[in-house]
């Protein structure tokens, strides 16, 4: 009976099968190996290709990352340079002791008012150079004017860095005859170290008329990094 035959017996019997005696089978072992080895070769190549792609992709990603990093660094430098160029202010190009020179660089060429009583001297803003309307707007809009003060000048201190010569500035302002009593803030150094987007003061140093306060400020770029672009702003109390 079929079911009396053990699987092992049947297996053994079938394993002893002589393929040449099986009708209708023309099997070629070499041909089968040829097909199999082709598949194995393809698989090997595919695996090699995958590894190559993976390595190439990693290198490309690394290059893109490095390029992006360098680009960002450069753009920050360019931004800074552009800012410096656009806001090239008077102290580099204008001898502020030279009244004519200053006049040439005032908005609307309004003359410096020597009368200290005429305190409405906000129009003697020193014009940034090179100048564009946009640059002006940006420059001035970003500088907050403290209450009770009028902004009268923005002087570049980009090249002065931390070493603002307060005494020299005082001399300059005094020599212009703008005002007789110039008060320079002693807090500039401390304020300079802080990173604010706007002018660092909201309070006048003194509420008296004809007093000037000179403040330094720093700006932040979009990534909140402090850009070392200090500027000097003069305020006159109203």
């Amino acid at each position, binding site marked *: *009976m*079929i*079911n*009396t*035959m053990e*699987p*092992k*017996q*049947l*297996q053994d*019997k*079938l*394993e*002893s*099968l*002589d*393929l040449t*005696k*099986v*009708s*209708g*089978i*023309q*099997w070629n*072992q070499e041909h*089968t*190996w040829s*097909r*199999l*080895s082709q*598949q*194995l070769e393809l*698989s*090997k190549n595919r695996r090699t290709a995958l590894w190559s792609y993976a390595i190439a992709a990693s290198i490309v990603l690394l290059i893109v990352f490095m390029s992006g990093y360098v680009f960002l660094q450069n753009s920050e430098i360019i931004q800074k340079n552009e800012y410096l160029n656009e806001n090239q202010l008077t102290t580099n190009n204008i001898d502020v002791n030279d009244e004519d020179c200053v006049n040439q660089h005032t908005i609307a060429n309004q003359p410096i008012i020597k009368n200290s009583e005429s305190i409405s001297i906000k129009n003697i803003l020193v014009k940034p150079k090179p100048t564009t309307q946009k640059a002006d707007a940006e420059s001035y809009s970003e500088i907050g004017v403290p209450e009770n003060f009028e902004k009268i000048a923005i002087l570049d201190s980009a090249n002065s860095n931390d070493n603002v010569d307060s005494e020299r500035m005082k001399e300059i302002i005094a020599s212009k005859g703008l005002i007789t009593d110039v008060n320079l803030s002693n807090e500039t150094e401390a304020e300079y170290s802080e990173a604010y987007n706007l002018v660092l003061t909201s309070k006048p140093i003194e509420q008296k008329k004809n007093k000037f306060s000179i403040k330094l400020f720093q700006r932040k770029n979009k990534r909140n990094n402090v850009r070392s672009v200090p500027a000097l702003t003069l305020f006159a109390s109203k």
Partner: protein
Amino acid sequence: MDYKELVKRCKKSDRKAQELLYNQLVTPMYKVCLRYFDNEFDAEDVLINGLYKFFHNIEKFNFSDEARLFGWVKRIVINEALMLIRSRANFNLVSTDNVESVSDNISALSELQAEDILKTIRELPVGYRTVFNLHVIEGYNHKEIGELLEVSENTSKSQLHKAKKMLRSRINLNDQYYGT
């Protein structure tokens, strides 16, 4: 033949070693494939796919002895055969009308030559043949066959019953024809 060394070399994709191992494996595996298909093309395709998977996954194989190696390859080849069969046939749909009515009193397969056994098995419908191979030759039980073929246990039993009946009838017919 040092199979351990061959397997070790095959793990490094040594083509020569693969060919040597292939030469040892291919004939017994082809015989297995022939039992599951009634045409040699399917049998050869399954054989190639099975051996490809074997070589592709040989890194996962821990060689202990020759029997284990052959057993592992055989399982891969049978699984490959079942995948192809499953993709083509629905075992639940084999009608009982196709089963010839025969008496239980027939001669045993064991009395036949290996070639005749193979021929008789290959003449069975695919469902009968597959279950018969798995149960009678490979020694799987019906529960395991049900899982392998994704059919119920009862379907497996029914397929085997019908396969046996058909085999008996075929063998009896041959006996009558050849007067043995």
